[in-house]
């Protein structure tokens, strides 16, 4: 083996002056196991290049890449009317449940007392019950008169009203 020739080729290789054929010769030389020690440091480089020539993308490369970049195929699903309005039904059921709970609680809370007024802010205008009695009774009379008038307006021909009027005008 002409090791001087290999030395010259190496020198030219480092200067990037070798042809493709000469580089192929170098790789063939370094693929052998038997060589002088001074060439061993360069062996890995040329073996690496030899190995990398055989490394490719593989037959499944296209499939793998396309599966990553293509959008997933979504199959159309037929939605029934029930499925469509299901969220609204759920919301309505929740509201109904709350209203029902509130109503039941309220009824049980005010079971004995139907009045829900806050009388704390009431300040009596009169401090004498007799004066207050007169005011309440006059208010009741006014209300009675208004109801009577209203009834006579709605039922002008009723005998009841004629009877009332005749009694009141006596």
């Amino acid at each position: 083996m002409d090791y001087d020739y290999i030395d010259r080729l190496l020198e030219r290789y480092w200067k990037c002056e070798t042809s493709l054929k000469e580089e192929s010769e170098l790789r063939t030389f370094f693929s052998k196991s038997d060589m002088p020690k001074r060439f061993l440091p360069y062996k890995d480089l040329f073996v690496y290049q030899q190995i990398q020539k055989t490394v490719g993308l593989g037959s499944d490369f296209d499939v793998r890449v396309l599966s990553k970049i293509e959008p997933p195929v979504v199959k159309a699903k037929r939605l029934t009317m029930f499925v469509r309005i299901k969220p609204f039904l759920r919301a309505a059921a929740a509201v109904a449940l709350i209203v029902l709970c509130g109503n039941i609680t309220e009824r049980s809370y005010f079971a004995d007392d139907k009045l829900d007024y806050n009388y704390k802010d009431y300040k009596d205008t009169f401090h004498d019950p007799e004066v207050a009695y007169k005011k309440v009774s006059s208010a009741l009379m006014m209300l009675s008169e208004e109801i009577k008038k209203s009834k006579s307006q709605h039922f002008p021909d009723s005998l009841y009203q004629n009877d009332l009027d005749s009694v009141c005008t006596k």
Partner: protein
Amino acid sequence: MRHVLFIYFVTFSFLFVSAQDFVSRFMASHHSDSKLTCITISPKMMNEILELNENVDTTILGMISNLKSMQMLSSNVAAVRYYNDALSLVNKSVGVYEPYFSINNTYENGQIMIRKRFGAIVELIMFSCKSRRFFVINFTGSMNIEFINRLSVLLHQKCS
């Protein structure tokens, strides 16, 4: 947890809200109006009235026993404006008051309305605009149709 708290709050929210009678609500928007005169008879005074023995009509006293409070509002000016305010307040309170009787003629406009709760009449309101005078009578208590029927013949009984 938040959902449970929300449901709990909504369920018991009625406890924090007390109702106001019609006159109180009307006065809330007219509280600085000096042209309106308001008379209030509280539940405490109603109880004192029921304890009266002399110079009282037993029929009227019987009717008062159904009542818890009374508020009366009157004004001798701007009657039509106040009447319209009262009407709009009723219209705003959707589902609260039911019309019971109404009077509409050349001389007078009036409405009698009730508020029902659990089947009982808890509020009886009359507001009227008559001869340039506006007035509201507002009773609260535990009333029923029979009470109103008795009330309608009260004047008849007194006249006779």
